[in-house]
């Protein structure tokens, strides 16, 4: 009675995969909203990015602030904004992430994107890796990496603007 029969095992596996199927739809819907918002905020011209004029002023201040920035400006690792360009800059990110609401939204996006990606990638592995032990090992590596990235990303988001 302790060991599952093949049939019970198959049913158990199906249940487990069904949870993944449902999760993929739920995280997908969440990403639809949060990723659209994220791309709008960080890539499209709007108030969450610096305008060209603002950015060039920031660069000017930074150049005077320390040797790190002065070197970067001289070597082209920092470049002035083109006319009409909108640029992501530390100041603007800091301003937004001071709010716990934005921190929560960004952590939700991080976790949704990671779990959706890990789930999808595991499905792809399941399609091509047919040796059972190798497949289980590969999927385990995916989820361990995902957990580490989630911890790393959450730590970064939480620590912005704290000191």
């Amino acid at each position: 009675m302790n060991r599952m029969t093949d049939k019970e095992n198959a049913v158990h596996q199906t249940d487990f995969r069904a949870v993944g199927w449902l999760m993929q739809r739920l995280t997908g819907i969440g990403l639809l909203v949060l990723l659209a918002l994220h791309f709008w905020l960080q890539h499209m011209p709007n108030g969450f990015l610096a305008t060209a004029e603002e950015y060039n002023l920031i660069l000017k201040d930074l150049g005077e602030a320390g040797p790190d920035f002065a070197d970067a400006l001289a070597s082209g690792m920092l470049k002035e904004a083109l006319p009409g360009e909108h640029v992501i800059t530390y100041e603007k990110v800091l301003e937004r992430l001071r709010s716990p609401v934005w921190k929560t939204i960004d952590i939700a996006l991080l976790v949704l994107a990671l779990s959706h990606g890990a789930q999808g990638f595991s499905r792809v592995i399941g399609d091509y890796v047919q040796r059972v032990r190798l497949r289980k090992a590969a999927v385990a590596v995916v989820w361990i990496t995902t957990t580490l990235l989630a911890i790393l990303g959450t730590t970064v988001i939480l620590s912005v603007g704290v000191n």
Partner: protein
Amino acid sequence: MQENSERKGPSAKNASFRTFLSTASTYRPRAGMVAWLLHRLTGLFLVLFLVAHIIGLMSLNDPAAFEIYVTTFRSPLLKIAEVMLLGSIALHAFNGLRIMIQDLFYRSETQRFLFYLALFLTVIVTLAGGTALIFPYFIAPLLP
């Protein structure tokens, strides 16, 4: 796994790069298969990008490092890559919605129409967003 006993086609027996090429070159693409392939390819690309993106954001611990990190993505070549990123996200999102609609409402007869709709919406979003992304780099210099 029991695949070995069930597979009978010549391509499975002599699986090689040559048989793959001969299959691929004679394959007639259909909407459902193209949708599956694009969804998978964009998904894998987005997973790779996500990992790089999260590791890159470690630079937020240091303002100088963050500004330099962001500047590397402002080269003209990577601006075009950014448009491709937007296109991949849009296609994966719209096709994902299509999959959900089919699964939940069991409308298999509309799948081809919905795929063309997803492609159409992807093109619209990529053109609109892409124009805004590349405007200062490629369009503004052409204007008088």
